């Protein structure tokens, strides 16, 4: 019995039941295992997922702490890449008036600065893999400028 195992991450496991092993043994069938590591593309996608997830989670915590929770963000399941990416490219996060990028934490300077640093990191990661909102680049450039020069008067 030839079995091929395709890994997605660096540490994955599998089990074979005693019943299966007995069934093979009783029949004199040898079990062969070929194990394939993730591809470069899969490893890159995995790194990107963890990077965006670990940046968006503190943004969500920050918004909640300051009672400015983003409705769409509340519905994001961080362990589900599909809903996570749907939110990451949304206008609710990166859009114009009313978006998280536009006005969240605007009345709390320290939290606003922290939010901007996280959004810069998040935006750069999204742009590096070509999965950003049309306004992400504009917001990242603005936040970069405000971090060094302060908010426009």
């Amino acid at each position, binding site marked *: *019995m030839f*079995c091929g195992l395709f890994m997605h991450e660096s540490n994955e496991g599998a089990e*074979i039941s005693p019943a299966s092993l007995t069934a093979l043994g009783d*029949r004199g*069938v040898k079990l062969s295992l070929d194990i394939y590591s*993730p591809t470069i593309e899969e490893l890159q996608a995995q790194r990107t997922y963890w990077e965006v997830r670990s940046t968006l989670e503190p943004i969500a915590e920050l918004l909640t702490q300051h009672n400015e929770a983003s409705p769409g963000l509340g519905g994001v399941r961080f362990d589900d890449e599909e809903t996570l990416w749907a939110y990451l490219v949304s206008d609710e996060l990166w859009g114009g008036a009313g978006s998280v990028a536009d006005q969240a934490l605007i009345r709390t300077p320290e939290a606003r600065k922290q939010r901007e640093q996280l959004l810069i990191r998040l935006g750069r990661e999204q742009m590096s893999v070509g999965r950003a909102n049309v306004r992400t680049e504009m917001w990242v450039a603005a936040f970069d400028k405000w971090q060094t020069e302060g908010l426009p008067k």
Partner: protein
Amino acid sequence: MAHLHRSVATLRIAGDDLDPNEISNFLGCTPTASQRKGDVFTNQTSGRSRTARSGVWRLEASDREPENFDAQIEEILSKLSPAIDVWRSIAER
């Protein structure tokens, strides 16, 4: 530790004097693919030919994502004769 992402499983019986029809009769199932030693195959794309160096009888299970070897082994064995002596006679050749 995460569960393995995907698994494939194939029962593969090979031998120089293997007769695929004989294995099919013994096990009561037609294979996914088979060949006899000396069979010549021509690649449709490249046009190159290759000669089988041994006889092979293969039965594949459907891929599982995430991995599920138990289900794949069960899928394959459930299609085949349960008579242990038949299996042993094949394994001992």
